[in-house]
């Protein structure tokens, strides 16, 4: 039994206990006060938000909440440009959305373009995350962040292809919510020279973060890694287009997830999410981005779960 299997079995044992207790409570209708949530095993050395995301998933399973039905996410594109640099034609935006729809279909998520706006601004075009320019750009342009996905295309500095906000950040900084991607990362560009990041996978990767996924190499070989049981522990991020190799992490018998959308391989080598990543996407979007979710009929139950966690 490797470390992850051990953690899984411990988690499942705890979950089974919690589920039994919650089921008993549900047999007498919903409890007046929400059941205390269960922390299984040793808490990992992670930020509070990460622990809370895990508690959300545990609670959703405990309450047997499964987000069903299609979630349609309107995308608001904000095209930041500097002269002709960064300008994007419609065909590239449509190709990007088509790719997002293909990759997120197993999570029953469909994206639709709601809005496209062009903005010429030099400091926004070359901004970095955490800068005043980021805050100014997003507070000026961000629209209906609860009910849509705001995608900003720009040319962020520092070798960045893109960055995103996690769903559990939304409550504190709703105005900063969204995804920023390098304008040259969108597919269908008319480019003289090929670029390893121009097939649209940066948006797939960043929307993964926006939907609650971590990098596959998060935490390296240390538990809980990326919190996904069907991705192998990975010591370092992949680069280029590596061959599949067994993970070097002690106790890990699987291969490094170098073809996963949440690794750092070149676009052409990114191939898939795993089933548990799709499950987490559904859970995180359904719970944190509930205004997008069709599960409004269960909002009372979700509210109860929220109260029990927060």
């Amino acid at each position: 039994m490797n470390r992850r299997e051990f953690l899984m079995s411990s988690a499942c044992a705890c979950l089974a206990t919690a589920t039994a207790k919650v089921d008993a409570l549900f047999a007498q209708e919903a409890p007046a006060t929400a059941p205390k949530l269960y922390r299984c095993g040793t808490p990992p050395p992670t930020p509070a938000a990460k622990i809370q995301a895990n508690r959300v998933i545990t609670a959703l399973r405990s309450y047997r909440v499964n987000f069903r039905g299609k979630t349609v996410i309107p995308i608001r594109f904000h095209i930041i440009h500097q002269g002709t640099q960064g300008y994007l034609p419609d065909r590239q935006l449509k190709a990007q959305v088509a790719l997002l729809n293909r990759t997120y279909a197993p999570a029953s998520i469909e994206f639709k373009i709601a809005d496209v706006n062009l903005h010429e601004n030099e400091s926004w075009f070359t901004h970095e995350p955490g800068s005043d320019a980021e805050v100014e750009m997003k507070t000026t342009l961000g629209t209906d962040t609860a009910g849509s996905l705001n995608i900003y295309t720009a040319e962020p500095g520092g070798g960045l292809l893109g960055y995103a906000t996690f769903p559990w950040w939304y409550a504190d900084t709703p105005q900063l919510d969204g995804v920023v991607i390098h304008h040259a990362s969108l597919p269908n560009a008319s480019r003289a020279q090929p670029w390893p990041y121009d097939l649209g996978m940066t948006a797939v990767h960043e929307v993964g973060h926006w939907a609650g996924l971590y990098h596959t190499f998060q935490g390296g070989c240390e538990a809980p890694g990326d919190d996904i049981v069907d991705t192998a522990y990975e010591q370092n991020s992949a680069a280029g287009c590596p061959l599949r190799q067994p993970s070097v992490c002690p106790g890990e018998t699987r291969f490094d997830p170098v073809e996963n959308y949440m690794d750092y391989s070149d676009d052409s080598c990114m191939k898939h999410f795993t089933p548990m990543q799709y499950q987490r996407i559904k859970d995180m979007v359904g719970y944190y981005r509930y205004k997008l979710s069709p599960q409004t009929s269960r909002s009372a139950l979700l509210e109860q779960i929220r109260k029990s966690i927060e």
Partner: protein
Amino acid sequence: MKQRLVLLACLALGFSASPALAFKNIEGCDIVTFAAPSSPVPIAAERWQAYRNQAETILGAAPQAQASVQEWRPVAAELIGAQKSLLAPEKGSKAYQDYLAGDSCRVLAKLDAGAIETLLDEVAQSAPEPAATALRRITEAARTQIDNIERSARFRSNRDKTLFAAHYYCFVAGAIVALLPPERQPGITLESFGNTVGCKEAGRTE
């Protein structure tokens, strides 16, 4: 008089540094390296003292109740101004250019959480309480910010990612070294803060 005017001009330049990229200053690593007895770029003792005083003043005046990362950014911007002021007179020198091009130029690739905690404890024993507390909080804020970015960003390469993070780690190291007691400085190296990587290897060009 001329020296004082130059110093004032440098201070003004430093303090006018934009807070746009608060928490980022790769030159903070140079400050740690130059504080060692075997510094490749000698800096006069009075300038070190001026830097310490500035850092202590900036941090001592920071509202202690501040909590969020965003709220620490203006304070960080002031500290970066002080860091740049310290190095400004040397920036064009041959010694500095040789250092940047040579193997002794290194930056932090990773912070050692335990080591940082120990150094902050040392600061707490020697520096005035408000400044020491503010230093601890601003260190946490910087680390939170880069941690958040690293968790949610896609970089073109590991090298880009390392260099991006180094700007944050170096700012932290340069701030901590300011408030360590002067007698501790000879024993402090960049490695006292965590893992380092050569500037060339990290792709540092500035």
